[in-house]
């Protein structure tokens, strides 16, 4: 009797979450119709000067960076042998998979003729383009993530043979995933290498690909922490004892790693400024903005992570992960929007249309909904009882 009483309210259709997400989905669908009937001009503030807006700046650049948790966690567990965090692989891989999936979905809104997205592979390949590399790696990595995630789905479906095959591929897929991630995470930064005259010199650097790659590790680690703290609040009923017992260790371990990587990231950002000899630009408004990013969203989280790990202060680490994630978002926005086209007069600059924000929200909401659908059904936060200790 008691059990039924607890579950019953969950099944109610009109929870606040459902209402809000329902509205967003409805809005998203309407904007989708406008987008594909009236064109990009009707729903975006994109212009000939500003061909890329938040659908690239947020949905693609931020989306890919924040979905880095997948390769970071599986590399940590399978390649570096941190087996005690094994329970965290599936949620991270799922987030990664969904992240990339929705990046691709978001791209179908942004590109002019989305059905031609496979053209670089089937018509003619522009191999001199970094975007080609990004496209190739993202599509391959999406496949890899799908395969990495497939055991959970196959367990849910009860397809034991197929599942066994997929599980056997784990280590190969993990290595493949790290290679592809290294390539496309850095290539996203390298996309901007071709426009030194448009990107502010404080952000433009020949090291852009390195910046993007290193910061993607920070993003991956921080997202796993951030997400694990959210999941343990909302999906704790889905978690098995191993997961619950290990998550604090996970937060401490990943926090420590994030602190170290952030320190390295800070160092190479400083090297970037020195290499370009751009110190004098720090005194300009853009320089102050750069310092806000560097000190407030790189140095500060680095320090806070370190303090949190030393004091075993889980709460601090969790909040720091949010700060670090915001820092990554800020960085990607700065490179793609704020410091891009900085030479143009302000009336030629880009500011997103509300419908662009609407689609971004729509995609994020869809991602959350699918995530919820999967974790409530498939063995993500727990081991499937039929396959104990099989890794």
């Amino acid at each position, binding site marked *: 009797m008691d059990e039924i009483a607890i579950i019953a309210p969950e099944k109610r259709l009109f929870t606040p979450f459902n209402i809000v997400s329902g509205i967003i989905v409805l809005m998203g669908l309407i904007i989708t119709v406008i*987008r*594909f*009937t*009236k*064109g*990009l*001009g*009707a729903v*975006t503030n*994109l*212009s*000939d*000067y500003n*061909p*890329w807006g938040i659908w690239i700046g947020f949905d693609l650049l931020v989306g890919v960076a924040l979905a880095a948790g997948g390769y970071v966690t599986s*590399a940590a567990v*399978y*390649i*570096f*042998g941190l087996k005690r965090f094994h329970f965290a692989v599936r949620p991270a891989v799922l987030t990664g998979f969904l992240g990339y999936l929705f990046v691709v979905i978001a791209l179908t809104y*942004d*590109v*002019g*003729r*989305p059905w*031609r*997205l496979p*053209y*670089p592979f089937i*018509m*003619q*390949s*522009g191999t*001199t*383009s*970094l*975007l*080609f*590399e990004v*496209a190739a790696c993202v599509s391959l990595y999406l496949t890899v993530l799908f395969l990495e995630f497939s055991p959970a789905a196959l367990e849910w479906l009860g397809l034991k043979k197929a599942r066994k095959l997929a599980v056997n591929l784990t*280590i190969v897929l993990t*290595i493949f995933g*790290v*290679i592809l991630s*290294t*390539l496309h995470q*850095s*290539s996203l930064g*390298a*996309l*901007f*290498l*071709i*426009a*030194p*005259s*448009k990107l502010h010199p404080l952000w433009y650097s*020949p090291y852009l*690909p390195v910046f993007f790659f290193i910061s993607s590790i920070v993003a991956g680690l921080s997202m796993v922490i951030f997400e694990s703290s959210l999941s343990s609040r909302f999906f704790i009923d889905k978690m098995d004892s191993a997961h619950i017992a290990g998550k604090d260790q996970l937060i401490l371990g990943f926090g420590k790693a994030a602190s170290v990587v952030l320190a390295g990231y800070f160092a190479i950002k400083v090297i970037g400024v020195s290499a370009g000899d751009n110190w004098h630009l720090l005194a300009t408004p853009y320089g102050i903005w750069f310092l806000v990013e560097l000190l407030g969203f790189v140095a500060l989280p680095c320090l806070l992570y370190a303090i949190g790990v030393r004091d075993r202060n889980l709460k601090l680490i969790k909040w720091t992960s949010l700060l670090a994630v915001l820092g990554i978002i800020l960085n990607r926005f700065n490179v793609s929007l704020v410091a891009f086209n900085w030479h143009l007069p302000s009336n030629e600059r880009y500011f997103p249309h509300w419908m662009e924000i609407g689609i971004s929200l729509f995609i994020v909401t869809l991602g959350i909904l699918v995530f919820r659908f999967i974790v409530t059904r498939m063995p993500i936060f727990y081991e499937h009882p039929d396959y104990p200790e099989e890794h």
Partner: protein
Amino acid sequence: MSISRRKFLGLIGSAGVGTAVSNSVFAASNKHFTGYPESFAVLHDSVRCVGCRQCEEACNKVNDLPEPDQPFSDASVLDKKRRTTAKAYTVVNRHDRAKDGIAPVFNKTQCNHCLEPACASACFVKAFKKTKTGAVTYDASVCVGCRYCMMACPFDIPAYEYDNALSPKVVKCTMCQPRILEGKLPGCVESCPREALVFGKRDDLIKIARNRIARYPKNYVDHIYGEHEMGGTSWMYLSGVAFQKIGMREDLGIKPAPELTSGALSVVPMVAALWPVLLTGVYAITKRKEKIENEEKNQAVNSAIKATKAVAELKIGEALAKAEKEQEEIVEKAVKSAVDNAVKANTEEAA
């Protein structure tokens, strides 16, 4: 005249055939490229330009572009700074130089047809090509519409049909490639009443430009914009005032766009080749560590067992010895007492 014209047409023909036959276009590769020999170009002399916008009108006509909001004869259009759009491949802007005490300067903007175009280098479906005539052409039939070309172009030239829902194109000046192949002049060049635009072989135009600078040294800045900018362009400019003052960037450098990304691209195969080695190595080390750990564990367990066994055996031995001793003692005692008893009994008997 007739000879030069025939030569000209012959050249056009060969250039056309060349473009059709050869698929390997180096202009977007990472090799240093100084332009196709004998390729065509246009020289724009802003000292001669009077802002009549005949070029805009001609461009509109030869490319069948939609009628503009304000007619071409309306000079008030020049009050605002304009850029190329999906409906205008070229625009003329007026730059007021009252501060320098001179009359306004007019400057025409359109695709500069770089020798090594950033757009071609950036396109992931090779929709842009530097052709042997000098024109950078665009193939809408493969374009996905990612607009990376627009991001890449240092001159902010390509425009996009944002209002076209299903088949939007990137739009830019074609240098009138079809007309060039027919032996005609580009529309704008043909229409310019003051020959502020000159069409010809790039090498010849550079000579003409130098000649003008030498002949009218006070009228020109001693620089041919486009001779080296971004690795050189097929549309070059002369000016009487600093190019920066007529809306042209002088900070672009002379490095062609493909060189900017070649470093990052060259790293790709290295990562693809070395990462598996590295990661497998790390994996192997991890595995080995695990294995060693396991072995050590087993050993420890074994030795522990052995030690316990030894101790146990020792104890048993001791116990056995003790027991034997005790046995002997007991026997001895028993014998003794039996002897004693017998002695006692004998003495009692005797007494």
